[in-house]
């Protein structure tokens, strides 16, 4: 082939540039990261899931308290919390979560007649396509082989970018450790075969945790029998905390 040096450099440059751009696009797509990180369903590796049944939650706040004790969560921060929704006859929605629901919910006066009232426990959604992992500049936030989104507090720089990127308000900067903090589904317990603290203490069985690869898991029964939904599905984060009876008012 007849090719002079200038042409060669030109073509080599274009190839390198094109390849670089192609690889970068792949890097930036959280979808690709997802496929490579999680083991496929149906294998022996556990893939964890979490289901919140909003019909069952009684708003006692024991889950919030248990989480705080188990994970040493500072007073002003919440790895999990419970929201109370009061919908009046005129369609107005009144939401509150005093102290994250940690001390239960005192009666609340709202204008109008209350048509509907319910509680919604919230926690990290451990998204399959997590924004927080995508934006962490140092790779301190990552997805475990079981699909749990974790923070390496020895490596986190505390820039708060993940806090901004989480659409669910599930993250905070731990005022003691000065690093990002969030629900881990009690990973330290789960790895020992225990359930997360909030699941353990819930008197109403409103919180369920299990292995999606285990056919006997209570989660599998719920997914086959109930109609479940996730929070903000339009954002495309594919949360893996699912909700039974999720009302349209809940964000």
């Amino acid at each position, binding site marked *: 082939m007849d090719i002079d040096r200038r042409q060669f450099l030109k073509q080599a440059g274009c190839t390198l540039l094109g390849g670089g751009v192609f690889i*970068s696009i792949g*890097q*930036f797509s*959280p979808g690709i*990261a997802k496929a490579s990180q999680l083991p496929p369903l149906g294998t022996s590796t556990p893939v964890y899931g979490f289901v919140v049944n909003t019909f069952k939650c009684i708003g006692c706040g024991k889950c919030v308290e248990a989480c705080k004790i188990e994970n040493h969560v500072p007073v*002003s*921060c*919440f790895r999990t*919390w419970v*929201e109370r929704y009061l919908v009046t006859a005129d369609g107005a*929605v009144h*939401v*509150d*979560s005093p*102290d*994250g629901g940690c001390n239960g919910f005192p009666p609340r006066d709202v204008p109008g007649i209350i048509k509907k009232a319910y509680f919604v426990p*919230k926690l990290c959604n451990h998204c399959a396509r997590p*924004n927080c*992992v*995508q*934006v*962490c*500049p*140092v*790779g*301190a936030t990552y997805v475990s082989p079981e699909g749990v989104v974790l923070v390496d507090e020895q*490596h*986190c*720089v*505390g*820039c*708060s*970018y993940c*806090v*901004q*990127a*989480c*659409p*669910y*308000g*599930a*993250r*905070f*900067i731990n005022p003691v*450790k*000065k*690093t990002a903090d969030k629900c881990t589904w009690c990973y330290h317990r789960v790895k020992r075969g225990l359930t997360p603290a909030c699941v353990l203490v819930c008197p109403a069985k409103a919180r369920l945790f299990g292995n999606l690869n285990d056919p006997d898991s209570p989660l599998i029964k719920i997914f086959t029998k109930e109609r479940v939904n996730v929070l903000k599905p339009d*954002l495309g984060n594919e949360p893996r905390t699912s909700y039974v009876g999720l009302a349209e008012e809940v*964000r």
Partner: protein
Amino acid sequence: MHEVITQGFLFPNEIEVHWSLMIVLYPYITGLVAGAFIVSSLYHVFGKHELKPVARFALIAAFCFLIFACTPLLFHLGHPERAFNIMFTPKFTSAMSGFGYIYTFYMIIVMLELWFMFRPYFVRMAQKGAGPRHHIVKEGNHDARFRPDILQTVRPVPAWKRALYSVLSLGVYDVSEASLHMDHKIITVLAAIGVPSACVLHGYVGFLFGSLKSNPWWSTPLMPIIFLLSAIVSGVAMLIVMYAFEMWRKGRPLDGACIQSMASYLWGFLIIDVVLELLELLCMAYEGEESWMTLANLISDKLLVSYVLVQFIICSTIPFVLLGLVSLTKLKDKTRNSFSIISAVLLLIQVFSMRWNVVIGGQLFSKSLRGFTSYNPEFYGREGVLVCILLFCMPFVCIYILNQFLPFWEEE
């Protein structure tokens, strides 16, 4: 710490504003870098000779602002001692991970350009003779024998200073015509690489915000462009103010063509910047998505003063009119200069309030879209007002120090 006042419902972790005044200051300083560099490049790359009086100073200013561009981030980080993790273990899915590299690359470009620009001066100063103070005859006067007043005192360059200039010259003493010509070419190339780098440096800051789908106030593809244009506006405005101040200090007149040119650029960039921001707002309002009701409340209540009044009504409208007059009509020198300087000062406030409205504004409402929090920066704290003022003063201190060693203006 001021008490946080909340309205409606916020997720419990949202009550505290995580990105504070430091994150307002960071894009502000970065913007000044990008803007000042682009003015310098308008002369070096695009041949806008009317900007020659400020071209060299613009680069110095860009350099000094660049040195301190990342200091607000260090004050903000929970673990500043781990700051270099961003370069050692970058995660390239994060826009932020590019910061260290973009910043370093840009710093190298600016430093190289500065070095080539001042190289002949370093050589001259390094080779200037030592010895006692002596007199030479001022240029153009030959009859000096009986006229001591036309003698100029020449102070010898102290040895330490000559050593400093020798070091700065990096041992390259070739100042032949051919070598200076080559320097000039290199400066042009560096400035040409610097223009896209400056755009990347600041466009990237806009991307940090614009790419977060979790926040409807930030999430728009226009964000990098708006950040870039406001950066240029702030950079040009800062140069006008600093140029006017320096000339006033030295008792020299302002270069009419230069001020006129900078004012015209400022007017042009201001128009595009404000139009884009208004278009973005219009699109959000017209589309009327679920988040719009919350954003409308944000604008009409929480950001009424800083966004509507300061950013648009006062600090955009007045400069638009004044700079329009400067650009389109023939004004007296003094009027033109006054209009330009007043506009520049107002635009510096406008861009700062824009940064505030984006960074703080985006954190004042809940992602549940049901409530608002408040933010009043503390005064003495690590991320407080005092630190912010001190950090913002540092580039000027740096410029002052550099001025002791380098001539900023052509006449020097």
